[in-house]
């Protein structure tokens, strides 16, 4: 499925979009990391939680967690939160 990549992570993908698969959001991110080593840890911490300033949306709705089920037609968007300075 299509995954939209924020600018802060494009050093990994070299693109604003990536293709990855998985039956859950957690599996999708593992698959993305296989293609782009290191990308998952920048987004998910060692306690398997989405990092504080990262948001993930599925079909325009905020994801419910890494166990959220996905369909091949879903669109996943990784967003860097509106924070910083």
């Amino acid at each position, binding site marked *: 499925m299509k995954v939209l990549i*924020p600018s*802060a*992570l494009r050093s990994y993908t070299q693109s604003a979009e990536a293709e990855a698969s998985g039956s859950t959001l957690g599996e999708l991110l593992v698959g993305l990391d296989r293609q782009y*080593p*290191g990308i998952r*840890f*920048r*987004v*998910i*911490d*060692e*306690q*398997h*939680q989405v*990092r504080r*300033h*990262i948001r993930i949306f599925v079909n325009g709705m905020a994801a419910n967690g890494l166990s959220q089920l996905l369909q091949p037609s879903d669109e996943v968007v990784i967003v*860097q*939160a509106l*924070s*910083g*300075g």
Partner: protein
Amino acid sequence: MTTTALLVSTRKGAWIFRADASRTTWAVDGPHFLGQIINHLVLDPRDQLTLLAAAKTGHLGPTIFRSTDWGAHWQEAAQPPAFAKAPEGEIGRVVDHTFWLTPAHRNEPDVWYAGTSPQGLFRSADGGATWAAFSGINDDPQYRAWMGSEKDGTPDGPKLHSIVVDPRDSGHLYFAMSGGGVHESLDGGATWRVLISGLNVVDGYGFDAANPTFHDPHCLRLCPSNPDRLYQQNHCGIYRLDRPAESWVRIGKNMPEEVGDIGFPMTVHPRDDKTAWVFPMDGTEVWPRTSPDGKPAVYATHDGGETWQRQDAGMPKEQAWWTVKRQSMCCDSHDPLGLYFGTTSGELWMSRDEGRNWECIARHLPEIYAVEAAVL
């Protein structure tokens, strides 16, 4: 011809400044990692080629980058420092950033140590590609109690820092925690002992000075010319320890009373164990941690802390409210020795005559977190 390099880490990236042996003109290389928070950029003195950078951004998790060509290309760690996954139902810790990097002993060419925030100690045996936790520190109930909560540390998180390797013995290690005190290992980190005797804790709250949790070492330095001598800038003063003694001596009591002995960084002379420098900051009332009275100065001792001399020639004489963080003051190995510090207001200052005269060599950088010097 020798080259002197300064590795400058900032809140918005890293820069490398290079000069010839005279250290009069500095060429700028950077920014590297523009926009990323670089807490420490360190050269491996064992090959004088490898750089490790501790990086994160405002949004992304922390990582380590490695270069073997002085920053022309960077390779990310395959397994950056990370705490163990907590059992289900328990709240585990998350590395916010790697704060400190130390190359190991010269006989262990691929080994590095890292200290994190919140406090964690890690080791790499493959040049920084993968990092393993010291679970005897990071997950030990006693150490976790001494570390306290995230409310007990500095505003951007409590830190494990000042990882020091005895040049005579690869297994003889020290580290410090803010908070959590100073610790020593004689077996490469398998076991540790507390080293806080003689250190003061904050007055007026009834804190027990025998409890490491109340100790806040800011910067620990070992003298290369005499590895039995350690200096320390602490939240509560400046100290010296001459091993095998166990008790720190507060040499900051000899600083001028109106200046005090509060600060973050400390650096030691590579060839003279009686000479060291500090950058005092205001520790009164609400702890501004700026140059006392807006008049910045380095203070030098040439007798192991018995006396201190003010060194401010070339610095502003008033209205300069500088803060210098614990990793932001260092020296090179020239004779006479060069001293360097970076301010949180983005200025890089140097002295090429051991502190007698100072000049600004860069302005308008982001907030400086660390300055390291290398002579190549």
